[in-house]
């Protein structure tokens, strides 16, 4: 078992302050309104360091999913700026957006595998941004991609499941395929939207461990939305507390106190 990245690496906030140019992602004053005049995100500013896991915690409906989807523009931000790989994502045309999306892997709460495709097809769909639609349709992926897909399946412990249909897998297995698909993109950033919410506690820890190891090996900074504060504390190198559409806490897991939790979630009865 490798030493988790987060424990060894310096705190990412400190790292980004000491080397301002090295941020993997910078979000500035991000605002999202689904209904005009009712912002869900009220001016979020965050800088993500080029390594480590950043956990975003906060009550349901506070805009965690919206925030993460604004980054790869599955949701269109209302205003604000997101800088990634030296480009402002909010200004990109649809074509350039596709090119940038290829560099951002995403893992979903309900896995979002294509149920009727096989596991290996799901993993290889991570390369769709690089393969022409015609070749993709004929399942003609470059041999290197196929090799990598199989080694990723090996890495997530599903080497024997390559030809099984995704809908025959258990929740934990599906999320492993989801992680393999995201990493198949060879991303420069990984977004995970509640990756463990549909899983039991043991499987949740296994999935988070896997994600931590694989992203550390590859040096991929990761942003994780997560309900479970204890799980976030265990795996993240940085915690961001979101409440009412604004950042109310930003710091290392050790700094997150009960008072902070009260402020993020409101009330205190649930703590004891």
């Amino acid at each position, binding site marked *: 078992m490798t030493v988790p990245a987060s424990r060894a690496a310096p705190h990412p906030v400190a790292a980004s302050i000491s080397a301002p140019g090295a941020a993997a992602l910078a979000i500035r004053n991000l605002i999202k309104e689904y209904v005009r005049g009712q912002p869900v995100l009220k001016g979020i500013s965050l800088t993500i360091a080029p390594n480590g896991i950043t956990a975003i915690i906060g009550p349901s409906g506070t805009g965690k999913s919206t925030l993460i989807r604004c980054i790869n523009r599955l949701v269109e931000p209302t205003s604000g700026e997101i800088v990634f790989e030296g480009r402002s994502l909010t200004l990109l045309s649809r074509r350039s957006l596709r090119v940038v999306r290829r560099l951002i892997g995403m893992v979903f709460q309900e896995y979002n595998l*294509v149920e009727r495709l096989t596991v290996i097809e799901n993993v290889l769909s991570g390369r769709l941004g690089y393969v022409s639609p015609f070749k*993709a*349709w004929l399942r003609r992926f470059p041999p290197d991609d196929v090799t990598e897909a199989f080694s990723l399946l090996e890495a997530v412990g599903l080497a024997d499941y390559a030809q099984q249909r995704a809908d025959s897998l258990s929740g934990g297995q599906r999320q492993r395929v989801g992680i393999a698909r995201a990493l198949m993109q060879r991303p420069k950033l990984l977004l995970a939207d509640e990756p463990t919410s549909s899983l039991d506690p043991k499987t949740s820890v296994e999935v988070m461990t896997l994600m931590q190891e694989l992203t550390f090996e590859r040096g991929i900074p990761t942003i994780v939305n997560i309900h479970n504060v204890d799980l976030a504390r265990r795996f993240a190198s940085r915690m961001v507390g979101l409440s009412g559409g604004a950042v109310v806490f930003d710091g290392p897991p050790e700094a997150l106190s009960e008072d902070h939790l009260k402020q993020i979630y409101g009330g205190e009865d649930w703590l004891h």
Partner: protein
Amino acid sequence: MSAAPPALAHPRAFVPNWPVRLAWIVLALYLAYALSHLELTPARFLAGLEFGRNFLAKLFPPDFARWELLLKGLKESLEMAVLASALGIALSLPVSLLAARNLMPGWVTWPARMLMVVCRSFHPVIVAIVFVKAVGFGALAGILALTVASVGFLGKLFTEAIEEISLKQVEAVRATGAPFMSVIAYGVLPQVFARFIGFASYELDANLRNSTMVGIVGAGGIGGTLFAAFQRFDYDFVCAIIVSIIALIIAGEILTNSVKRVFRA
């Protein structure tokens, strides 16, 4: 005291719905009116039975003496049905993708939907009459007529299937930066493929039945032979044709079932 009705301990579970009751009453009244208006008396019914008995007596036994003519018509009907189904499926796929409101903006879905409505507006026999006038007698007119009908129905069924897919799976494929056609190939089609096969085999079945009909207006197939036999009061040959059509439909049923089984991966 005892004369007063006991107070209900709970609210009524089944509240009478007067608008629905009224609708049932109106329906019953209309049925009674229609029956009396068309003079469907028991005497008329008995007279009809007498006609039927004579007709049945003339039908049997079926006469297969002109089996070559029969076989030629059946073969033509089968070919028309298969060709029209293939063409219809090929045209329905792009049209239904354009018409799906969860994938396309309104200005694209609207014309695609209009096209399908127009294709579905008329019975295949009426469309066949139009094509007979346009391209002349024969199988070509029949194939075109059946293709139009196929696009109308398959397009609608395919569109509905596409509109019911899980957009989460599509979102995941979009998030990889896949181009639009790859999103269709990996995010949309796998979700609807099994249902498409089911609908397509149903349409082949419908086309088989309709291909025995359009011949009546001169658009090829066994229908023309059937109509001619009727007009000559050649009832035992009519019976042979009807028996053959039933056999053809059963064969088609077996064929489409095996097609479905092959694709049920």
